[in-house]
């Protein structure tokens, strides 16, 4: 099937370009691991202090006395991971469409057989699979830094996979809108962060029960999947329109 050939070629070309970009692939991974390594250092005592305040006020009276700061950190670890993944996705999105616009490849794609919506979809998936997937597979490592057991990290993987896809589809819209702007990272952040909210909210809800030793919250996971599907349906269409607009400029 000829359209499949074209789609495969576009996927491979995007993967090669992202790979050839060098730092692109390792950046989010480094970002997440580095952030997770720093958080216990800066927040450990603060978390203990907050817990002490609540304890004095009687709010934590039910909690056993021997609970440690790292246990408390583990309670919020899944949320912190969401936070880190959301920010890490932002730093990788800047170049998704920018180089194609600059070197004229985008014109080739528009004169070719694939609709721009499909082009945007494939490019986002290609970058996600090269950049986000490895970082997520390595998630038990930063999870460990935050006091989350490797087993819990692996169990929460489906939620993070879905959520990161939503981040990339929305991020693709921001990247397309700002493709003709130099240093567009800031613009992308401002444009897309509000759209991250549903995925972050349902995603955090889905993994929250892990801290208390139970499995994923499947209801929240379903809502997360719905949010991701919505981003997959709307994101590429909006990105395609933005790319056509930027070619007018």
């Amino acid at each position, binding site marked *: 099937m000829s359209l499949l050939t074209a789609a495969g070629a576009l996927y491979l*070309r995007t993967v090669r370009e992202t790979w050839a970009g060098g730092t692109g692939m390792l950046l989010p991974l480094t970002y997440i691991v580095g952030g997770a390594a720093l958080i216990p250092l800066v927040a450990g005592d603060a978390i203990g202090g907050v817990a002490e305040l609540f304890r004095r006020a009687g709010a934590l009276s039910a909690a056993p006395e021997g609970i440690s700061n790292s246990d408390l950190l583990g309670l919020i670890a899944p949320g912190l991971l969401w936070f880190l993944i959301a920010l890490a996705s932002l730093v990788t999105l800047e170049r998704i469409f920018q180089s194609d616009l600059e070197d004229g490849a985008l*014109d*080739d794609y528009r004169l070719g057989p694939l609709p721009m919506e499909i082009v945007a979809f494939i490019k986002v998936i290609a970058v996600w699979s090269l950049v986000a997937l490895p970082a997520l597979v390595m998630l038990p490592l930063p999870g460990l830094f935050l006091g989350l057991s490797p087993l819990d990290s692996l169990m929460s993987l489906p939620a993070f996979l879905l959520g990161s896809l939503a981040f990339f589809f929305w991020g693709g819209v921001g990247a397309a809108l700002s493709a003709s702007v130099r240093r567009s990272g800031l613009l992308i952040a401002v444009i897309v962060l509000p759209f991250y909210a549903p995925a972050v909210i349902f995603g955090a809800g889905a993994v929250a029960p892990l801290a208390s030793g139970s499995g994923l919250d499947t209801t929240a996971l379903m809502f997360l999947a719905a949010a991701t599907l919505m981003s997959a349906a709307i994101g590429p269409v909006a990105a395609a329109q933005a790319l056509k607009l930027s070619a007018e400029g």
Partner: protein
Amino acid sequence: MSEAMTDWRKISLRAEGLASLRGFRLLFRDLDLDAASGSFTALRGPNGSGKTTLLRILAGLMRPSMGELRWDNTPDEAIHLIGHASALKPFETPRSATDAFIRLTGLKRKPALTDALLDRVGLGRPADVPVRFLSAGQKKRTLLARLLAVPRPVWLLDEPFANLDAAGRELVERLISEQCAKGGIVIAASHDETGLAPHTTIDLAEPRSVAA
């Protein structure tokens, strides 16, 4: 293939009253352009007179500020646009870039065909050298290979002779006349006088400012 060529005999372009306003500069207006199958149109005009913009409008990548444009009897994906930007990725080689272009069009690549094409455009030797090591002329030749790799009836060429040596310019002239003989339409923006006589010449004047 032969069927495609008979179809090419019916294609035509009709553009009426085209105008392009970029910011406060009127690049051109009241521009009429007719091109029939087998014709070669030359766009001339000083730098900044809107040649590239006109080509992008004809390719459907931009909308004209005014006027209408119609391609008749053209198949899907009828247009090659060879522009200023190289549309080549630094890590690609002439061979991989050509193969990628063939596959991006949805066609199957044939190694022997690619070899023959690259020989034809004079890239037999540097076929596997990454684009970032190629000269401007060799990059241009890499783009010319696409014109042959994927047959499309309409060629919109932006400065096709730029950066090319004498042999390269001769090659471009030969490619253009072959394309016209096949029934294609070639529209080229160029400063250079060539050995090839265009059927029509469109002169774009110095742009006028419309700011008050």
